């Protein structure tokens, strides 16, 4: 088996360059590659295009990269939780492409799967369809969407092994598996890194073939956006 282990986040992100296209797994703040983001914040980067379902909050996640003006463009489905984001967008410093969430997920999946384009009904008749090819199949209208791929993908898993196999936990899986497959260089951070052979091959969510670097993450904050409880 091929050993993909690197020492830490700093080593994992060492060759990330300005103007690169980056993908980040996570939905809201759940399943976010916290360590990689922290390491990117230590680097002198700008002009980045970030593909991520959300843009973090002001003081966590991609929000911190926005604050440091590292990001030129965001490609997301929902960006509502971030005042700095709003400020940069309104001032024209930040470019934003909003994509229906399922289309975003499928465009990233297509990127990893070598499918340059596909048809989806999401957005037909809306401004999302502007400039896109519309076609009828079996009496229903669909629009053509292109794949998305990245120079670097950052994903976060629950468990991983040295050959890059990943297992996610709960709804922290979300965009992580597709983004792992769609990055030229995919960097995985895990809560628990084990030797190859310790994970059940039948339970792997992301096969190691998609992962170029893996490291044991540290100090996970796993911040909760909407702490909602019932009276027990």
């Amino acid at each position, binding site marked *: 088996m091929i050993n993909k282990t690197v020492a830490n986040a700093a080593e994992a992100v060492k060759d990330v360059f300005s103007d690169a296209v980056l993908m980040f797994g996570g939905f809201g703040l759940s399943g976010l590659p916290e360590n990689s983001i922290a390491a990117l914040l230590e680097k002198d980067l700008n002009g980045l295009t970030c593909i991520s379902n959300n843009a973090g909050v002001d003081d966590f996640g991609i929000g911190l990269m926005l604050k440091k003006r590292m990001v030129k463009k965001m490609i997301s489905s929902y960006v509502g939780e971030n005042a700095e984001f709003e400020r940069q967008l309104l001032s024209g410093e930040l470019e934003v492409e909003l994509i229906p*969430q399922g289309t975003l997920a499928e465009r990233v999946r297509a990127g990893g799967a070598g499918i340059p384009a596909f048809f989806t009904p999401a957005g*037909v008749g809306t401004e999302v369809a502007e400039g896109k090819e519309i076609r009828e199949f079996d009496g229903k209208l669909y629009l053509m969407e292109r794949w998305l791929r990245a120079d670097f993908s950052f994903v976060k898993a629950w468990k991983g092994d040295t050959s890059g196999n990943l297992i996610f936990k*709960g709804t922290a899986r979300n965009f992580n598996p597709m983004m792992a497959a769609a990055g030229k260089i995919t960097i995985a951070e895990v809560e628990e890194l084990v030797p190859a052979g310790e994970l059940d091959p039948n339970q792997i969510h992301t096969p190691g073939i998609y992962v170029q670097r893996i490291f044991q993450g540290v100090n996970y904050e796993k911040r909760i956006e909407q702490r909602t409880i019932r009276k027990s």
Partner: protein
Amino acid sequence: MLSKDQIAQRIAREVKGGQYINLGIGIPTLVANYIPENLEVVLQSENGLLGIGPFPTEAEIDPDLINAGKQTITMVKGSALFSSAESFAMIRGGHVQLTILGAMEVSENGDIANWKIPGKMVKGMGGAMDLVASADNIIVAMQHCSKDGKSKLLKECSLPITGIRCVKKIVSDLAVLDVLPEGGFKLLERAPGISVEEIIAKTEGKLIIEGEIPEMKFD
């Protein structure tokens, strides 16, 4: 006029046993509280879960288990977890049979607008465009009129739309209406104390009224 909880309660009556259902943020989330316990249904969360359970107790909270509104949740027995691509494969493939969501406007041919107000900060459509383009049955929970009294049931949507010809039924604070395939809002029920005349006055789009319109009853 129906309260938000009464709108949710009324929508819950549309739910059938055996259905897989996606509930949007806001009033639709409340629908879960009114689905009879003997109906076997499964709630889907588009961030990757089939089988949403109640909110957790303080002890049960898990940051790796949230719903599409980013709220902490629990899972019921028989749940399944999956990726966002699988989740929207389910939605797009028509496997999630019923979608209940809010709307700012609905047109008489079933177009819905619920994601963007020109001049205001755009937050994004999230999964709404996928959901309305996919499910066989789409029910909207909404206020009949805006705060300044303008009808939100229109001939044509004035706001940027989320999807075309998709809404099948509306439960507003004033009425229950079907959106007919050939176009038009067919009045089915009135909210307690609301007259047909008031609904006529507050519905800009084509309203179809046949026979006596019953008043909704709540326990």
